[in-house]
Structures are given as structure tokens and as C-alpha cells.
């Protein structure tokens, strides 16, 4: 950061902190309150007495695993998020490389098509997607969900990877070609390692997006044994009266996963969202 940048003045600082505190409170209060409530007893939650847990109990967390069996939904969701992201990244990298490097007929059509898919409000396509999943025998199946999520994340992943490749020099690839390396050898041995920062970025963002996905999970997954954590959360809500502390503790865990991923890998998340947005 250079000296030329305007910095906050001593006089304006209190105003700035006041504003930032208000924004933080508005953004975080309901969530923080619910997370804190995950340590309360059911009685305290229902009466709404006191903001802080009194007494503190971990019963909700015990119930989340013993009664709600959260681990089962967590495993499904981890499967969808890791394999779905991996599929999207593999397909996107394989497509982004030639579309960033070579001129050929149909290139601009493919780039425009893949990129425009990012701007489609996909919920508008709900019924056709359901129809296609059913016709392909992918409805209510774990494999189907992985394939679908790979497709859903493909446009974003493609756009970010291609723009990254466009901005990287190609001397190393040319040198590899001189040495007689073939197309796939160059791609895997030379280009892939260079693309690592962008790959990390899209992996983190797409993991979080699949972890949080509700609409299509709700559309495609009927059997409880295939459902993801978001469907489990939506289920808690309708069973609010049954085990409220278990539900709150479960929701807290489901929220904490992307929060931890974000806090740990903040740079990648922000870089990824920024890169995806400016295209």
C-alpha cells in the first residue's frame, strides 16, 4: 500500500468504527444469537429467557448426532461437495486450456455459451432439469447428484480458470512443445502446476456452494439416505417442536463448516468471487 492512498483521518476514525460496528451487528446478530443458543436447554430456548445460556449444556450437540444423525447427512454432503467440485474443475480445466490458447472454428461460440450459462437463473429450469435427471436415471441417486453439481459449477469454474490462463505467459508450454511434449503431457505437466492458485480458488468456492445448495437437492433427492445437510436443516424446521436444541446445534455445525473454510482460506474465497464476478 503506497503513501499516496487516502487513509482514515484521526477525526473521522470514530465515525468509521461506529458505522462498521453497526454493519457488523446487523449482519451477525441473529446468527450469533442462534449459535450461542445451541448451548441452551430446550426449556430456556422455548421461554426465550436470557440471551446467554444458563445453564450451559452440550445436550443439543449430543442429540444432533444420536437422534438427528447429522453425521449421515454430513457424509453425503461431503461426497457431493468434493466429487462435484472435482468433476467441475476437471471438465473446466480441460476445456479452459484449449479455449484460452488456440484459435479454431467454434471457439468464440463455446466461450460465449459456457460463460453465459453463469448468468442463467437456473431455478427457472427446474422442471426440465428434473425431467432430464429422471430420463438419465440420475434421479434420487448420489452419483446423479455429483454429476449434476459438477455441471452446475462448471460455468463459474470455467470462466475463472480461462481468464487465469489468458493472463499467464505461455513460454513454458512453447518450450515443452519444442522438446516434443504432446498436448496432454504439456497440459498436465506444465500448465496444471502453473494454474494451482486459480484451482485452489475455484475449489474452495465451489465446495462452499455445493455444501450450501438446497434447491436442486430438494428437487432431486427423495430418499432420506441420500439427502444433504441443507435438506436436513429444512426438516428440522418442520419438526421444530420435537428436538429444538438438537436442531439448533445441528444448524450451528452446518453453518460453521463454510465459515471455517472461509476464515481459513479467506484469500482464495475472495479472489474467486471477485474473479467470477467481474467477467
Amino acid at each position: 500500500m503506497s503513501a499516496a492512498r487516502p487513509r482514515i483521518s484521526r477525526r473521522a476514525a470514530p465515525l468509521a468504527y461506529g458505522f462498521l460496528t453497526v454493519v457488523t451487528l446487523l449482519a451477525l446478530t441473529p446468527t450469533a444469537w442462534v449459535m450461542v443458543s445451541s448451548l441452551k436447554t430446550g426449556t430456556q430456548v422455548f421461554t426465550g429467557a436470557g440471551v446467554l445460556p444458563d445453564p450451559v449444556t452440550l445436550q443439543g450437540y449430543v442429540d444432533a448426532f444420536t437422534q438427528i444423525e447429522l453425521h449421515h447427512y454430513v457424509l453425503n454432503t461431503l461426497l457431493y461437495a468434493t466429487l462435484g467440485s472435482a468433476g467441475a474443475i476437471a471438465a473446466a480445466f480441460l476445456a479452459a486450456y484449449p479455449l484460452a490458447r488456440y484459435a479454431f472454428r467454434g471457439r468464440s461460440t463455446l466461450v460465449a455459451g459456457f460463460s453465459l450459462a453463469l448468468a442463467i437463473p437456473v431455478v427457472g429450469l427446474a422442471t426440465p432439469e428434473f425431467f432430464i435427471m429422471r430420463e438419465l436415471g440420475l434421479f434420487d441417486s448420489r452419483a446423479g447428484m455429483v454429476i449434476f453439481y459438477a455441471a452446475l459449477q462448471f460455468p463459474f469454474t470455467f470462466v475463472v480458470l480461462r481468464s487465469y490462463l489468458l493472463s499467464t505467459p505461455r513460454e513454458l508450454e512453447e518450450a515443452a512443445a519444442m522438446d516434443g511434449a504432446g498436448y496432454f503431457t504439456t497440459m498436465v505437466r506444465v500448465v496444471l502446476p502453473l494454474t494451482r492458485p486459480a484451482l485452489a480458488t475455484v475449489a474452495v468456492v465451489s465446495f462452499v456452494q455445493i455444501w450450501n445448495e438446497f434447491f436442486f437437492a430438494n428437487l432431486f433427492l427423495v430418499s432420506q439416505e441420500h439427502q444433504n445437510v441443507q435438506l436436513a436443516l429444512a426438516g428440522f424446521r418442520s419438526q421444530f417442536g420435537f428436538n429444538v436444541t438438537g436442531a439448533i446445534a445441528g444448524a450451528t455445525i452446518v453453518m460453521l463448516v463454510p465459515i471455517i473454510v472461509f476464515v481459513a482460506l479467506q484469500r482464495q474465497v475472495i479472489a474467486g468471487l471477485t474473479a467470477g464476478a467481474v467477467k
Partner: protein
Amino acid sequence: MGAAPIPRGARRAVAVSLLPGAALFATFFLVPLGVLLVTAFSRWGGLELAWTGLENYRRMLSDPVFFAALGNTLFYAAAAVAVQVPLGVAAGMVLALRPRGWEAFRTVIFVPFVISGAAYALVFSMFYNARAGLLNNALAALGLPGDRDWLFDTTTARWAVAGTFVFVVGFVMVLVMAEIAAIPDEVYEAAQIDGASSWRQAVHITLPLLRTVIGTVILIRLLVDIGMFDVVFILTAGGPDNATATLALYAYRAYLNGEWGYANAVGSTILVVGMVLIVAVRRLFRVGEGR
């Protein structure tokens, strides 16, 4: 950087490497679009398919519930543009002035953005709860009437739903911060020679340069709103009396009823409204035209 022609002998390899992406794109974007375009003009319940021309659209335009859903969807979009975008821009501009502790503020303000709609629905079902919710308890503690059922009162339900997302400003904030970081130093150096205060520099130099990024965030936000579903579906199921229903929820109900053609007519409306908004916002904010 100009692209080179495909080297001799690599044509097949290029085709092979394009295949997985093209297959995903065709299967889950192109074909569904095609199915949508045909069946929006049909009666379709999975098995029988009968061309009915504009019948679905006629029905849509004569259904008050459709207009309620459209109105709510636009209301949510307007709430986001009126509250979320200005708050996020302001937060990004303040943090770009690097007050001490700015990184901590960036982290905590961004956190709510990575929480899912389903989790938010659960959070706010508790927060707005008539008896035990924090909102009513806080109001009561202040001596105000604290017994309103925010989500199930037709006068407050829409506002309560908007309250679940308008303060999630982290995404707008980080885009604005990235944009400010990309402004060249020289732009500020000139102003400082003229003795302009930080405040004047923010308003007269930074803000005008944010025009494009503000357009971009409005665009992204509108695309999210036009497909808004999760929070409303779980929190209120569109009620009370459709006071919170969105277009996506309205289409979903038609789908559940087995009226797939009709659902697709509504779906096509979502896509068209989305496209119109994209074009309008891009024009208005000159997105994609360079600086």
C-alpha cells in the same frame, strides 16, 4: 495475446479435452433450455404433451397469485438494491481507508455471506419467533410492544423476509474493496497535491470510479433475487396469503401439481426477466465497456 492455431496432430486431443465440459453444458444447460422453450407452450405432465400455444401465458397473466409473486420478487430485488448495495459499498469504501483492524471487520462482515439459505431460514425462524425470538424480547426490553408474529402477519411478512438478506453485505463489500485496490496511485497523488481531504477524495475520486463495480453487484444481486427460493420456501412457504411468495416458489408449486408446462412458462418468465435486467443494468452502468 493472440491465440495460435492448433498444432498439427493435436486436433483430436483438443476435441477430446473439450468433450466433458461440452457434454455437461449440453446436458444440463442447452437441452433444458430447449425443453423449456417447447413445453412452455404446451400442456405437459411428464407423459402427455400437447401444444397449447399461448394458453399457459394467458393463464399466468390472469392469475392474481402470479402477480403477487412477481410483486414480491421485485420487492426483494428493490430492497437489496436500496439497502444491501449502498451499505456494502459504504463498508467497502470505509475499509479501503484502512482503519486499524480493517481485516478483522472484513472477516466478520463477510461471514454471513457463506451461510446457506436453509440455515438462514432456521436462524430467522427463531429470531422472529413471536414468543421466544430475540427481536421481540429486545423490543420488550426497550418498552416497545414485543408480541408481533413478524413472519405470519401480512403487514410485516415481506419486510421480515427482506430482513434476512439485506444486511448480508459482505459480497458487495469485497468486490468494492478489490475495485478500489485496482485504482492507480497517480489518481490520488494529484488530488493530494491539491490538498483534498480523505473524505473529498472518497466522494469525488473513488465513488465515480466504482460505477462499473456497483453495476456488477446490482446485476449479480438481481440474478440471485429473481431465483429467490430457499429462505421463503422454508421460512413461510410463501405465506401468509402469498404475502412472501416469489416467482421461483410459484413455478415450483405448479411443478408439484404436475403442471409442468405451466411451471415452464413461469420458468421462462424468470429467465426473460433475468435477461432484461442484465441488459438494462449493463447499459445503465456501462458494465463491460471498459473504462
